[in-house]
């Protein structure tokens, strides 16, 4: 029975870590490939969730509502990049403040449009049994979703011409231009992809995390810390940071209290930043 309990805790912690990773990847892409911290990332997640919710309410099947959410968030993301972000390149803290302004504006718009309470959609009912314990199936499915997302982003960034251009543009911006890369177009696309990934996350997590205007805040903070702890090799770094921080916090929470879990997350973040002032991947030699 002890083994069963342990297995249950480990699986559910891995699923929490995966949920954190799903919510983080879009932010990691934007930070890793543009050097921009998008504080409105959580609100893109929220927009994705509301898009999926609204379209399912109109009768669209849930599975189809996810790509719609991606398209909507990508479009908004591209617009935001052209209107605001593109004017602020190289000004890290200014982009942080501007996207924070955007975040509270989006939040307030959501309050105006949807109100503060919205109905959730039911979680698909299937579950997994380990001994005497039962785990809901959908959160476990998120482990696979997170892995697929990470693989997708890795393939996108290393196997496509766009991905190579985007990586070149962040590594040596001047030379990227000098060999013919139109950085502004690449950046617009990168930001849109980051927002699209957030939209996907919001939609795919909808059965677990109901859409509310403030859902972004809850996610973005941990996502944001994960990315900063990860450092310059964003994707691999974020995966490891999400598993370590998110999984560790979840394990702590299941043995102690949820507050202890949060405290664990923040304390380990502080410790890692102290030990690795430029992020854990600062000296790694990897592509992504």
């Amino acid at each position, binding site marked *: 029975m002890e083994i069963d309990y342990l297995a249950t805790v480990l699986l559910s912690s891995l699923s929490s870590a995966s949920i954190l990773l799903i919510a983080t990847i879009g932010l990691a892409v934007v930070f890793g490939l543009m050097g921009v911290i998008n504080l409105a990332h959580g609100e893109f997640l929220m927009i994705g969730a509301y898009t999926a919710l609204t379209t399912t309410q109109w009768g669209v099947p849930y599975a189809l509502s996810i790509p719609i959410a991606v398209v909507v968030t990508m479009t908004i993301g591209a617009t935001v990049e052209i209107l605001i972000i593109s004017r602020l390149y190289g000004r890290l803290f200014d982009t942080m403040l501007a996207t924070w302004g955007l975040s509270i504006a989006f939040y307030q718009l959501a309050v105006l449009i949807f109100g503060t309470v919205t109905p959730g959609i039911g979680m698909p009912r299937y579950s997994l049994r380990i001994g005497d314990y039962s785990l809901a199936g959908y959160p476990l499915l998120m482990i696979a979703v997170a892995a697929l997302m990470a693989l997708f982003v890795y393939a996108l960034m*290393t196997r496509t*011409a766009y991905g*190579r*251009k985007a*990586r*070149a543009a962040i*590594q*040596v911006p*001047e*030379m*990227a*231009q*000098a*060999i*013919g*890369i*139109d*950085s502004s177009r690449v950046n617009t696309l990168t930001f849109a992809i980051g927002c699209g990934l957030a939209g996907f996350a919001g939609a795919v997590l909808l059965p677990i995390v109901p859409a509310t205007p403030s859902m972004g805040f809850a996610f973005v903070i941990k996502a944001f810390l994960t990315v900063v702890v990860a450092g*310059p*090799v964003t994707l691999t770094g974020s995966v490891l940071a999400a598993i370590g921080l998110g999984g560790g916090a979840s394990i702590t929470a299941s043995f102690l209290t949820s507050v202890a879990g949060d405290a664990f997350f923040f304390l380990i973040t502080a410790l890692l930043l102290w030990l690795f002032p430029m992020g854990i991947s600062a000296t790694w*030699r*990897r*592509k992504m």
Partner: protein
Amino acid sequence: MFRIVNATGGYGKTVIIRDVSLHVDAGEAVALLGRNGVGKSTLMRFATGLIPAGSGHVEIDSVRAPVSPSRRAKLGLGYVPQGRFVFPRMTVIENIAVAAEANGHNGSEAVDATMADFPMLKPKASDLAGGLSGGQQQVLALARALAVQPRILLLDEPTEGVQPSIIDEIAGVLKRINRDRGIAILVAEQDLDFCLSIATRAYVMEKGAIRLETDRDRLKADKQLQQELLGV
């Protein structure tokens, strides 16, 4: 086919080059000589569009070149910067492919062509560029510029910090592409032998301006001029 006309520019308010004009004809190889700090690199960056022009402009095929560096590259301007600046967290293959793809060429064809031109890159093909030695990075930077399929190639101090055997190899490749493919070359250098082995004509810069224009034979013969110009 390539001209710099009345170039004036620098960084911020500091003007480094003043009213510099030069030209490189189709298929010609020209050297830009001068001591450290006379403004050679600044002139190169002016030519690529990486520093804003105070005044003056660049012409490619008698047409005024656009402001954006990436559009200049598409018009056939290749650039090997001082300090190499390869993309460190990308492999050798990716460094070359991305340069080809950014200009609408096929990436894998470019990689194959490069490996034929530079056999020394072959064993390193899948390594990250940041881990290569200085000389290998220099060769990669040259290969990357060639993947753009340029008609004029600008090289800024390609021998800096590179061991002699690789310098010879680079010189050989440059001579070959100049002769066989008709790619024009403008090379800024302090290494006189290197320049004389490639270029037929030279400009000498001093204090941000062109001091004189000369040809290979005259420069080779005039030891006095050599010493004076290079501050040896």
